């Protein structure tokens, strides 16, 4: 049963990954990419990593894909199609892809995997205490580094969005009117 589900998931992921690269309509590519990401979430569900699967769905499917769709909606017209690459480029890309597949397959088949019998479902409490533990094997340092990076990204985004208003030092009322017009366009 699990084997069948795994093969179905793997097959759909490969097919949609290829479709995402081959499609000439930009939004269709994005949707095929969404199916690939949802397939990865499915694999996580299959091996009982429920938390990671839900994170995959919220962050990638719900967050990143929606952002990409937004940018496509803003810049792309429905009748535009992406141009086809020159034959030489296609051949080079094909060879590069085959090389990559070769390296990956070679590593997978030569590597000596150690099968771990794991019947425990990781609970969110375990993940939480691991994330904040300062002992050996804890993840407090990467956790803090990531939060600093996110804070920097948020401040950067706000400064870029404010743009000229920061230089001018304009008054409160002007700010409001600009925010209003900005959101009305949406």
């Amino acid at each position, binding site marked *: *049963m*699990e084997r069948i*589900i795994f093969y179905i998931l793997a097959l759909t992921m490969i097919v949609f990954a290829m479709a995402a690269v081959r499609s000439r*309509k930009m*939004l*269709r590519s994005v*949707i095929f990419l*969404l199916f690939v990401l949802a397939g990865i979430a499915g694999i996580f*569900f*299959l*091996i*009982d990593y*429920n*938390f990671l699967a*839900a*994170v995959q*769905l*919220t962050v990638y*499917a*719900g*967050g990143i*894909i*929606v952002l990409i*769709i*937004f940018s*496509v*909606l803003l810049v792309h017209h*429905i*009748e535009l199609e992406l141009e086809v690459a020159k034959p030489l480029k296609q051949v080079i890309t094909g060879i590069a892809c085959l090389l990559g597949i070769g390296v990956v397959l070679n590593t997978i088949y030569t590597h000596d995997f150690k099968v771990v019998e794991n019947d425990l*479902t990781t*609970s*969110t*409490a375990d993940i939480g205490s691991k994330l904040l533990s300062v002992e050996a094997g804890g993840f407090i340092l990467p956790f803090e580094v990531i939060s600093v990076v996110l804070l920097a990204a948020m401040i950067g985004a706000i400064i870029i969005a404010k743009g000229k208003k920061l230089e001018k030092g304009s008054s409160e009322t002007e700010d409001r009117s600009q*925010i*209003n017009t900005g*959101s*009305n366009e*949406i």
Partner: protein
Amino acid sequence: MRIALNITENIQEWLLGMMSETAANYMAMVIVALIYLGIFSVAGLFLVLIERRVAAWFQLRIGPNRVGFQGLLQTMADALKLVSKELTGTDRADKFLYNLAPYFVIISSLMALGVLPFTKEFQAFDINIGVFFLIAISSIGVIGILLGGWASNNKFALIGAMRSGVQTISYELSVGLSLLTMILLTGSLQLSEIVEVQKSGWLIVQGHIPAIIAFMIFMIAGTAETNRAPFDMVEAESELGAGFHTEYSGMKFAYFFLAEFINMFLIAAIGTTVFFGAWLSPFGITESVPWLGAFWFLAKTLILVFLMMWFRWTFPRLRVDQLLTLEWKYLLPINLVNIVIMAFIVWQNLIIQI
């Protein structure tokens, strides 16, 4: 893969008497899927009817009361009409995405339905990250709306879809954070355990002041996330025609329409589960009769649904900038402070337990 399928187990045991083990497994899955599809369509149809009757009641009208007893078959007739209608589409639209879009919306709400604990036994998928899974699934639905709006090749649909995207992404934060406030009390994301905790008092009583604030934020943000009035900029009739589903007709339109009502039901059901003790009866009066849990669950859910309809027919529609100001300048800061207060209350053990 070990899924805790409660109702499946019961059905499986019953089926095992009749056929082999594997066949019983597959049959149980099919039966559960059919049961949930049935709940989905029946709930959708009757919520539409309830909405129309409630709207009529608020406007001192009678509402649909001719087809069947008190109009009970009215929405069935509407559904039959929608099935028989011609499916139209715009010229030069992206046909593939246009046809795909309704399924995103409807599948995401159907998947969320499977997690809800109707009674102790009647819960299809008791996953250990229940609440988080619900939040994750509800973030997929907006993709269908964005796609539908863009693929229709219609500027009103596109504007409606963009508004919907902005609105849903913003208000998802508030829904998530207000549920997180309650998770501080339960200490578990699993819905069956959340219900278990509430046997010593519903969470809205246990968490008193911050819980009530969280509930109010949850209802506001939930109404906004389902794109209902007073937050229905997405399909503001006076400005955008019908918003993102302007170009949809027949059954494809009905999918969007049904999904909207099911989403309303879902928000009310999540509210019931997290704040009002799901299938637990008030003061444990019917604890000896387990199947009455479904009645209590539905009763509480319908009261919250009625509250959302009440919002709809009472408040005027907000502007887009007012909507975003409400979320980012009011709800989000209140929510963050509220989490800290709740953490303090749990730390000092100021919980009210019956």
